[in-house]
């Protein structure tokens, strides 16, 4: 349903020889079984289609994220069904829910424990900006402590919106989009 988005430059293109004669093919046998691509592209292609999410579900959005993983919406279709609850085994941190001041050091540590390459999705209003909790104990967006790649609006977002967010991230990975917010990130808890 999103053909335009999926078919992008990073998908390895097979050098096809549909019209070639038999002798030509025999002369250049290797080209029938191989395709050419840049290494970066094929790595990115693999990465974007096998995201291993770590659902950091703290609140209501966590329940909606269960829906996304669940039987009806089934994130497995995007190659991202392997939910890992250890940061060391995951490359996509889905912050699903409100992050409080008390939680902020914890999620920063979780983020630091993830191996490169790593991506962060802020799911829902609270994770993006604190949402309607303009309050004394709520962090006003998880991007105050860790770098966020994709923000998904909604309170909570519908599963369709979450999938859209995942696809946006996949496009970012496919095109190797520069992420200055991540490269310039420093932990707010480490003294300079």
């Amino acid at each position, binding site marked *: 349903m999103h053909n335009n988005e999926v078919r992008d430059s990073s998908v390895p293109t097979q050098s096809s020889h549909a019209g070639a004669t038999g002798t030509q093919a025999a002369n250049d046998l290797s080209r029938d079984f191989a395709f050419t691509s840049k290494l970066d592209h094929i790595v990115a292609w693999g990465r974007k289609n096998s995201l291993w999410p770590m659902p*950091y*579900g*703290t*609140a*209501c959005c*966590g*329940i*909606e994220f*269960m*829906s996304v993983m*669940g*039987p*009806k919406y089934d994130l497995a279709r995007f190659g991202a069904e392997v939910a890992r*609850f250890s*940061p060391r085994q995951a490359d996509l941190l889905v912050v699903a*829910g*409100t992050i*409080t*001041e*008390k*939680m*902020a*050091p*914890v*999620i920063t540590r*979780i983020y630091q424990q993830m191996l490169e390459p790593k991506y962060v999705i802020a799911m829902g209003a*609270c994770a993006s900006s604190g949402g*309607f*909790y*303009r*309050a*004394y*104990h*709520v*962090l*006003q967006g998880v991007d105050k402590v860790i770098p966020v790649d994709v923000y998904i609006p909604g*309170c*909570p977002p*519908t599963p369709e919106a979450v999938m859209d967010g995942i696809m946006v991230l996949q496009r970012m990975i496919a095109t190797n989009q520069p992420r200055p917010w991540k490269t310039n990130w420093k932990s707010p*808890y480490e003294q300079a």
Partner: protein
Amino acid sequence: MNKLENLKHKLSEKFKIQNFKFSHAFGDDVLEVPKEDAPQVLMHLKNIGEFDFLMDVCGADYPTREKRFDVVYHLFSSKDNTRLRIKAQVGDGESIGTAIPAYRGADWFEREAYDMYGIIFEGHPNLRRILTHHQFVGHPLRKDYDSDHRQACTASLPIHFNNEPGSPGDVLNDNYIPLNIGPAHTAMHGTLRVMAEMDGETIVRCNNEIGYLHRCFEKMAETHPYNQVIPYTDRLNYCSAPMNNIGYCKAVERLLGVEIPAKAQAMRVILAELSRIIDHTISIGTGAMDLGALTSFFFMFGLREQVYGLFEKLCGARLTVSMTRVGGMAQDAPDGWYDEVLALCKEIRRGTDEMASMVVDNKIFIQRTRGVCPVSAQDAIQWGYTGPMLRGCGVNLDLRKSNPYYGYDSLDFDVPVGTSGDIYDRYLVRFEEMRQSVRIIEQVCKNVPGGDYTIRDKGIVLPEKKDVYGNIEGLMNHFMLIIKGLRPPAGEVYDATEAANGELGFYLVSDGSANPYRLKVRPPCFAIYQSYPTVVKGAMLADAIATIASMNLIAGELDR
């Protein structure tokens, strides 16, 4: 008033009641006592068997008064299903005796009152912060604390335990292995933290820390108009959001003294019972998942999605529906909605039976849960358990039967009760409650009353959009109500409903303005979770995980 006279008589035998003030307002019995007498009064009321449950302890702040704080106790008697509110005034920096000797369950509620207001409870063994982080300065629910004043937290607390006689909480025993679980751990459901000292696989000492999802619900309620609080209530127990809407609106309506139309009552009952079902699907599904049975989770979520579909049809939202308004419902149900609910009831009944055969009839599940970490009925009452956890212990208490509302008394349903109070019974009770909820929904859906879905009081309910855009009266009415706000009379009320986890109480204080002056939520799993270190002491680590899952802790209402 009869009950109050009776109480007066019983208290006069032991106390000088000329200092006591008995009153009856908005249907609640209130007793005001001097703070010196409060612990003894509580102890006496418990000992003479008058009130067996301490449902809630909370503070309230009146900065203009000489003694600025109120400590408010809410008692409940399962004997005659009556309630009593006891209030004591405490000045800034003063202390009041703890209620723990009388009611064990006062523990966390008093810690919360300390955290939020700085009220000191003398004799409390662990008067530490509970919801805010340990570096927090000040007490956020005081009226002079700005709701937007944030304080950063730079580190988590190291492993610590509760102080007990002979063993101070922050001294670890070298003979045991300290173990930290959570808050980022699968079995901790996102926001719970459990710390334990292990002797091999056995838990010697255990402690739990909460507050990782403290979203300041009560402060937000104080800074928003009555109807704008409804979306915040959705996010208390987000697994069964409509039930929180209903509980809150019911409290406000009682303060306003309005009775909602029969059709709104029926719609609320349907929503509440559907929510109870989907709450139990999550509880059972994730509970079984924590024991290693992943299928049940996917299966239960299939059922849940179907209920989401109905919610979506009703109001457009899936999870956080905000469907009630003070005075009734936000809108009528679409045509044919009740028939769809009835059709889904068959699905749910079939799904529940199928699921029950896979979970509670499963040999592995039985071996993992039967006889594990049982809680006796007396202990459960002492801790302030309510809902399926209490009924699993064999206490037949369900507010839908004992203090019926919205016509529950005219409906035919049973209250399942367990026998041993172990984990297995809790799940049995939840499965049976799902079946009973289906029965209730079917009865209501087959006889939905006609009439309006909301009252039409111009000072309470906004006019319909066609009137707002169609005529000047509607426009003016809308304008006035938005600007002036819905204003209940000054007074206070405690109202409770039977939510999926147990008694969900709202203690609402109004000063006659457009925002609630104080809104305290009595979350059912708060009282349950405080017993956790005691319940799992001496158990195996894996059993502790099974216990935490069976308690169905929803961080939104636990931490608020």
